[in-house]
């Protein structure tokens, strides 16, 4: 059970930041929070198969994006609204922090290692989002407007 406690925290974190992005309806905030939890659940569940946090991030970003696309179709709102906050738990905040700490400590090899890894995670995040949005756009045959 302890393993899945972070999913709850991801839910609270994504939902908590909803006010910062000026989301006013409760359902919108809940959709974001569920997206965050769903993303982290995917990350954890794909762990035993993929064994790499970059690949896990990619998988989670794809799942979140699909979820956000579906929600935006249902509620007729821009996709961004739901994707934004749901992606928060995947953002490599810890990576940036440790990279900076190694830099302050003057540990060059650890710094480079951590830096490249952080860039990798951020890249995986962006690629995951792009794969889904590009596919949806091809599927709809035009730039979408929902």
């Amino acid at each position: 059970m302890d393993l899945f406690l972070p999913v709850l925290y991801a839910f609270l974190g994504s939902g908590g930041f909803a006010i910062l992005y000026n989301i006013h309806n409760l359902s919108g905030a809940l959709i974001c929070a569920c997206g965050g939890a769903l993303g982290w659940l995917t990350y954890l569940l794909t762990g035993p198969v993929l064994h790499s946090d970059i690949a896990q991030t990619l998988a989670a970003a794809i799942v979140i994006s699909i979820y956000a696309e579906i929600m935006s179709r249902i509620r007729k709102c821009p996709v961004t609204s739901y994707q934004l906050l749901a992606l928060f738990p995947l953002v490599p905040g810890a990576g940036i922090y440790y990279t900076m700490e190694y830099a302050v400590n003057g540990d060059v090899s650890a710094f480079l290692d951590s830096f490249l890894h952080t860039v990798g995670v951020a890249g995986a995040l962006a690629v995951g989002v792009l794969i889904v949005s590009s596919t949806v756009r091809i599927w709809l045959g035009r730039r979408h407007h929902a």
Partner: protein
Amino acid sequence: MDYDKLLSLAADLGYGLLESGAEIYRVEESIQRLLWAYGVQEAHPFVIPNCIIVSMVTPEGRSMTQVRRMPSHGTDIDLLECFNDLCRHLCVEKPDLDEARVRLEAARKACRSYSLPAILASYFMGTAAFALFFKGSLRDGLCAGICGVIIGLVVSALGRLNTNMFLKTLTGSALGSFAALFMTWAGLGEHSDCIIIGAFMSLVPGILFTNSFRDVMAGDMVAGLSRLADALLTAVALALGTAFSLGLTRLIWGV
């Protein structure tokens, strides 16, 4: 039809969308659709994060252009949804231009914003949850929440002074991590790294980064690159602010 009014309406609609943090293609497309809906076939909007240019040729063959300068802005989902909705309705219903203008003003007024205490509560909850998320203890979560509130206060105070994103992030992260290190030193927090990372999450430019890639992939190179530069600068500000506090506390307390 008064094409001057139409062009102003389209540019203002685009302005509202861009201000709310919409993707570039959404802004361009909304302007184009609106102009098409009102019978202007030749419409060429060009949007980058701080400027909107709309050029069109009226059916009589006169060409017209308007430019809107966009100050730096954040993300406002409520405004985005209002304007997106408005654009859809205008394109379908095609009310006359005066009524459309009234509805545009009404949409802007209808858009709500939260009070400072609500925003601070959001900072508290988000940062506390993320400190726990990054394997902090409950006490770390509490400390991160306090740091989050400090960051929220700093960001909104500096926001009132119209400072740029770089300075806001730099000051916010420096004060936030200083508070984290102080609370750890005072014995309230247990893991300073978990606290700082949790507090970090309220400033991390992850969204900006993803959006910039999205713009590049959609073919909006200039917009994408300028947002990427923005995201990287913010990340640097975040790291510098924290590095400053880490260095300072090491000097003071030698931890």
